[in-house]
């Protein structure tokens, strides 16, 4: 009876949520005392906030995946998600503990795509808009590591304000789930049970993380969180074959990451930057830097558009994410993809 995927999805979702919440409780109580904390520069008084909250996401996804694998349900797909989250998460932990170089991080995150490539839980076809489908199994396999590096690091660069990375990722994941469900009910070849099962593994830990990371943050997710969330999103979309909706949903992330890189002219670590993109006054008012050498981040752009407080900037960024997610959903609803 328990083997029915719906019950398993509900049980694994509950396990994932409970283990993430327990981990987050531990992190908020102990990490500042242990010295694993960062300063929230955007708040008056600059409070110390526990770092590496992303550990809760990794633990939650792993705990939710184990029963599914043990019950022999969609093993390669579930392992694909779990191992990608674990591999990217471990790179995030290493980066949080001892800063990785600007080139090391994307290379290592690309290598974290190997479990997904080897388990092969995908079709190898790339469905483009307007009914164009390319059957490219070898090329598809080759682009997974590169795509993982791009998506993970885009989510990482999007973690500039409280809850922007977790909140936007939650919206992207929900959009991908709705897209796959819509495709299924429109007569596509999507397996709604698999979609629901994978969603129930990723969504509850991400929701718990967002609850602690949203403005005003009780926890920073760190690179541990951003890289593993990016890994989960990429693995979910590859397994579901929802690459185009993922790209559309991630347009604000990709724009931010891409122009960070292009305005600096090379791969870089945030700590290397001499010119900050925004300036924060004592009372928490945020101003866009006028220094042309500073990276043109999305936050800087939004600040230049007249959004002056952290809360306003978060609201503006979330509006842009909602627009992209809406466009991704509309594309499928209108039959363009």
């Amino acid at each position, binding site marked *: 009876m328990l083997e029915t995927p719906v019950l398993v999805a509900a049980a694994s979702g509950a396990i994932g949520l409970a283990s993430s919440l327990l981990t987050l409780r531990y992190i908020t109580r102990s990490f500042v005392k242990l010295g694993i904390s960062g300063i929230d520069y955007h708040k008056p008084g600059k409070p110390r906030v526990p770092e590496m909250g992303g550990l809760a996401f990794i633990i939650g996804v792993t705990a939710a995946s184990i029963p599914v694998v043990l019950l022999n349900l969609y093993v390669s797909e579930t392992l694909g998600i779990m191992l990608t989250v674990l591999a990217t998460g471990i790179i995030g932990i290493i980066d949080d503990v001892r800063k990785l170089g600007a080139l090391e991080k994307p290379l290592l995150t690309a290598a974290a795509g190997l479990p997904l490539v080897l388990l092969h839980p995908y079709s190898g076809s790339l469905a483009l808009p307007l009914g*164009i489908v390319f059957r490219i199994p070898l090329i598809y396999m080759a682009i997974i590591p590169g795509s993982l590096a791009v998506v993970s690091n885009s989510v990482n660069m999007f973690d500039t304000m409280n809850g922007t990375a977790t909140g936007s990722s939650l919206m992207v994941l929900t959009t991908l789930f709705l897209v796959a469900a819509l495709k299924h009910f429109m007569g596509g070849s999507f397996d709604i049970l698999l979609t629901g099962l994978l969603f129930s593994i990723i969504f509850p830990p991400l929701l718990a993380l967002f609850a602690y990371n949203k403005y005003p943050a009780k926890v920073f997710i760190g690179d541990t969180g951003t890289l593993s969330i990016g890994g989960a999103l990429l693995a979910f979309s590859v397994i579901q074959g929802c690459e185009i909706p993922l790209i559309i949903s991630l347009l604000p992330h990709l724009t931010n990451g891409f122009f960070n890189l*292009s305005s600096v002219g090379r791969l870089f670590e945030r700590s290397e930057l001499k010119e900050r993109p925004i300036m924060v006054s004592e009372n928490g008012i945020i101003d866009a830097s006028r220094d042309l050498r500073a990276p043109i981040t999305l936050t800087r*752009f939004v600040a230049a*558009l007249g959004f*002056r407080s952290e809360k306003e900037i978060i*609201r503006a960024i979330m509006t*842009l994410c909602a627009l992209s997610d809406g466009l991704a959903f509309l594309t499928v609803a209108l039959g363009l993809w």
Partner: protein
Amino acid sequence: MGSLFNLKPLVFLILFNYAVIIFGSYILYTIQVNIERALRTMPRLLVGFIQASVGSLLILLWIFVWLNMYRRLFLREISRDRENRCPC
């Protein structure tokens, strides 16, 4: 206090990229098919190479336009912001 209406340069940028993703892939596909038809008599490897080069060139062109648009829109906003603040 920033109104959500202020976001229009970024909304425009998202809509532009969305249009490129939706219609650009169809244009790219049509170009690739036409290259294949036109160069039918040439060696398969060469045709593949030409197709890959054209595809890469078009993607680079998209990135170039995207980059320039973002930069121009940002510089326009930052200069407008400066004018509003500076009483001189």
